[in-house]
């Protein structure tokens, strides 16, 4: 007579196993998807900060003549940041600062960029001291600091986590907020 331990799986055991594996996989896959989505947002925000740092460095280095500055515009609908065409914009002088597609840079498929103030395209002007100017070269509208840009995903099933980029007189900060929980962003500590 054969012992019970050598009988193999019954159909019920097999089905239960399959179901458990399916549940675990789907939970993991959805959280992995959210993780990837959040990482892409973070990546987009990082790309913007690094672009602005480059623009600031250029303003510090090249805007030595009075009246010159480095001005970039962030377009919310094309998700692109690039120098403006203003005559005094040294970032538009050849070789000009190349435009950057924030959506492409993050490898994501959807991205929405909003700002705490103003409407797209958002202008940021760096003076020759490396500070953010109170008005822009191309616009006389007063720039209120700090200025915060929010990066979010808007597709169905997207997370409610947004990335924040705070642009201040002398520094930039990366942070995040959960739109369902908090109105202000939490920024990375030192």
């Amino acid at each position, binding site marked *: 007579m054969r012992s019970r331990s050598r009988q193999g799986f019954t159909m019920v055991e097999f089905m239960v196993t399959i179901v458990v594996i399916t549940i675990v996989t789907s939970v993991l896959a959805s959280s992995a998807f959210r993780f990837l989505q959040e990482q892409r947002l973070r990546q987009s925000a990082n790309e913007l900060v690094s672009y602005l740092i480059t623009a600031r460095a250029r303003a510090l280095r090249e805007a030595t003549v009075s009246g010159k500055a480095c001005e970039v515009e962030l377009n919310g609908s094309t998700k692109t940041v690039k120098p403006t065409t203003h005559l005094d914009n040294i970032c538009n002088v050849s070789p000009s600062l190349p435009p950057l597609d924030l959506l492409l840079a993050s490898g994501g498929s959807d991205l929405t960029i909003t700002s705490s103030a103003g409407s797209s395209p958002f202008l940021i002007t760096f003076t020759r*001291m490396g500070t953010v*100017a109170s008005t822009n070269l191309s616009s006389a509208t007063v720039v209120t600091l700090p200025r915060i840009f929010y990066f979010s995903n808007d597709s169905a099933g997207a997370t409610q986590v947004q990335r924040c980029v705070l642009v201040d007189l002398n520094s930039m900060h990366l942070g995040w907020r959960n739109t369902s929980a908090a109105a202000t962003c939490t920024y990375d500590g030192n």
Partner: protein
Amino acid sequence: METDASRLRRVMKACSSTVRAALAPPAAQRGFTLVELLVAVSLGSVVLAFLGGGLLLSELKVSARVQRNLYAKDAANRAIDLMRREASFSRFFASNKLVFKGSVLTDCDDGTPIAYTQRNNVFICYKTVLPSDLPAAYGSAYQGPCVLVRVGPPYKPDGTLDLSATPIVQVLLDGVAKTPHAGTLCPYTTALAVTSSLDSPAIGGVLPLTRDANVSINLASGVRYSFSVRAPSNPAYDGKDLYEKSVAGVTLIGFGPADEASYHFRPKMDSASESMPGSDSKENIFYFQHPLSEYTLRETSGSGSCTYASCYVERGGFAVEMTNVDALIFADQEIRPST
């Protein structure tokens, strides 16, 4: 009586059970069952995942911290540069607004440590505040312990001050030091200090106006930034912030309270010889409208060269005779006569 055959059968039976026992594997050599192996593998992978994940996370945290430190250093350098630039274009520097005449920024009127600088009728002050005192929009962007802010007119894109705009409060630098017992203040000597390098005596506990100051900023990280600044020579002769007062029949134009450490004279240069005695106990500074090359400097009207005790300055038939001359400031340069 046992037969031979039955004895043989008994012996053989005994032998065969011994052989069988000897041939069966001992319990210790039976190997793992599949279940044991699976449990071991899954435990091992859980442990490895924890270790590997922890290592990866700590690595990421370290690189993020290094990056933030670099940004912080860069921000500190730019902030100090801006302060130095603003201070060096200023006429005066002081640690308390009481030494200024006229209106000063209201946002700097709250008792926190303050350094003031004054350009032509433009006041700029730097003070240290707690991050919690910043507007709510800043969130947790600045972590303190203290934050260095600048109050003054903002900068236009071309790098010049927007004098038509109202003065605003803007953050310059994060991570400024605070002593543990400082409570709800960011103390003056710890965070931001301005001392005069002319050793002017304090007036009512505050340093007087100075054209020559040492500024130091201590960061919580232990880094200390300091710079010396000297107000440039005769930045604007028109001196809208000067007020006139008469001392012993001489038209004396000075700054600040009467007991200030320096006297500032502006010879009118409208008579053939005007006498302007400086004070023994003050630093006497004389301002002239034109470049040094346009003036003739002598000890007296007849001869000699200009000294501390006596200096005669002439231009186009008009002259002034001065004593106790610490500094002569012309449109293009400043000189200190020998003693």
